[in-house]
């Protein structure tokens, strides 16, 4: 997804001279071409996220649109207060790009896992939070981030561990806050955001073999949400499973639960994110997700159990 992001950004920079890139010394094997093509518009602040966020604010106040780039765990949490005060509170055009989100750097441990970044960014007024799920979405989201005034957080992960792929069959038409229907179905609803889309497709395929046809929705926006369009996809007394490579506290699952409970709607929302614990082990991304119960088999079993319970309840 990183490559798609950079290629899209370079095309945007050709047209829009106001775009600058500020990197806190990240970009190996990513930003070389951009740096060489726009040497005056690529600023490497060194490994100093707080300064980089403050500099981005100062540049944006001076009329630039700034893409502030580093790894997701650092560019959001280490300089959270600078983002809150210098950028978000002044509604500045700083588009924060966090790469290697979730368990992308699965061998590196807690320091490099980014599982709380969305919750932190979502809590900030003015902040738009965008989590692309495949290469199409990554490109579209990058473009969309410049279609409005104010800050955004773009969360870049991996579509799967081996390689980044296109998951949508065609380039989807994206709008901030809108859901994208990936697979039509009359069973339970599965909402996936960001890097869980590949996983969600596998999940649906597996459910199909059990004669369950879920509705699969990709939601590359976490904030703000088009509540009307999203709720329009849910069915009375239905169950909505929300998949995200992020703690279940404060991410998209929380956001949808909040909409449903605030409105008192008759849906059940199941948050399928990572659990409330730190993992002090290494492994593959799939292995670590599995330790949080996020495997296709476990979730298929869970959905089937939920459906049986519901059927039993109806019989009674």
């Amino acid at each position, binding site marked *: 997804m990183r490559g798609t992001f950079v290629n899209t950004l370079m095309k945007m920079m050709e047209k829009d001279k106001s775009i600058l890139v500020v990197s806190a010394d990240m970009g190996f094997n990513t930003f070389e071409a951009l740096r060489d093509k726009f040497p005056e518009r690529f600023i490497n602040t060194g490994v100093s996220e*707080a300064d980089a966020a403050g*500099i981005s*604010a100062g540049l944006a106040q*001076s009329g630039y649109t700034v893409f502030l780039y580093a790894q997701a765990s650092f560019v959001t949490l280490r300089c959270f207060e600078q983002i809150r005060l210098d950028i978000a509170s002044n509604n500045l055009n700083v588009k924060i790009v966090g790469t290697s989100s979730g368990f992308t750097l699965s061998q590196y441990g807690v320091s490099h896992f980014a599982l709380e970044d969305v919750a932190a960014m979502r809590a900030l007024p003015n902040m738009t939070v965008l989590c692309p799920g495949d290469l199409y979405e990554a490109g579209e989201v990058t473009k969309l981030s410049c279609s409005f005034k104010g800050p955004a957080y773009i969360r870049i992960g991996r579509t799967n561990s081996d390689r980044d792929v296109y998951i949508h069959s065609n380039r989807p038409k994206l709008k901030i806050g809108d859901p994208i229907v990936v697979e039509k179905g009359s069973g339970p609803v599965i909402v996936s955001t960001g890097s869980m889309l590949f996983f969600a497709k596998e999940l649906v395929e597996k459910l199909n073999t059990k004669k369950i046809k879920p509705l699969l929705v990709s939601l590359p926006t976490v904030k703000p949400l088009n509540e009307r369009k999203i709720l329009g996809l849910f069915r009375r007394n239905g169950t909505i499973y929300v998949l995200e490579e992020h703690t279940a506290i404060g991410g998209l699952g929380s956001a949808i639960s909040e909409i449903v409970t605030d409105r008192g709607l008759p849906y059940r929302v199941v948050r399928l994110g990572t659990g409330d614990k730190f993992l002090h082990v290494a492994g593959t991304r799939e292995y670590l997700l599995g330790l949080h119960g996020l495997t296709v088999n476990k979730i298929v079993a869970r959905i089937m159990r939920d459906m049986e319970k519901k059927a039993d309840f109806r019989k009674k």
Partner: protein
Amino acid sequence: MITKQKISILERKARNLRKRIILMIFKAKASHIGSAYSVLEILIYLYDSVLRIYPKDALNPKRDRLVLSKGWAASALYSVLADKKFFSEKELDNYCMNGSKLIGITTMSGVPGVEATTGSMGHGLPVGNGMALAAKKKKQKYRVFVVISDGELDEGSTWEAIFFAGHHHLDNLVLVIDANGWQSFGKTKDILNSSPLPEKLKSFHWEVTEAEGNDFTSLEKAFSKIPLKKGRPTAIIAHTTKGNGVSFMEDRNEWHYKYPSGEELKEALQELSK
């Protein structure tokens, strides 16, 4: 050289603004009068003799930017901005009142002349870096002045920014350290001693000079040669007295927190009217 006449005009202004500030603080039952009195001469001198400003066109792109990183001295900045007619002097009566944009710590709430949201320590210099870098990129002539406190030298983000400005030759950036020797819970030299500060800054490729920060003659000398050297950012270590100008407040940290009683207000106004 600054003339004696000019000095006496500025000193009279400082006394009058001190009166204005204590009335604002008294009415609002607000904190930070010691910080405001510490930095007041620096702000008066900058707005009077150094900064290119457009009070009726506060966002003119050619203006010099002043970032008051020690935003809790807001009352001093507001009094100077009103004196310079950025907004009406009457507006100062609303300081910290319900719904007022004159917030106790400088915030980009729409007050003409306030350039940054500050007061969380260590934010001003990174933002100033961005503004100074933007001027270089756009080949604009404006300069950026960032006023920080001693305590802000404890913050890592301040040193990240010092590192960056030196490396990037931001000679349009001037850092003024309002060095009154105090921070939140005690004397800077006891809590986290920044000495030797000039050597530290020089080793980051800054040019450094020192001044008596409550003395207009000394401030004039320090500001007359900026940038001290082409290609390098300038730091002015301005030695000040916290609570300067009112003898019972001078060099006393409690005036970071408390507001004057009616008796104290009277006593202070008497002293400032001498």
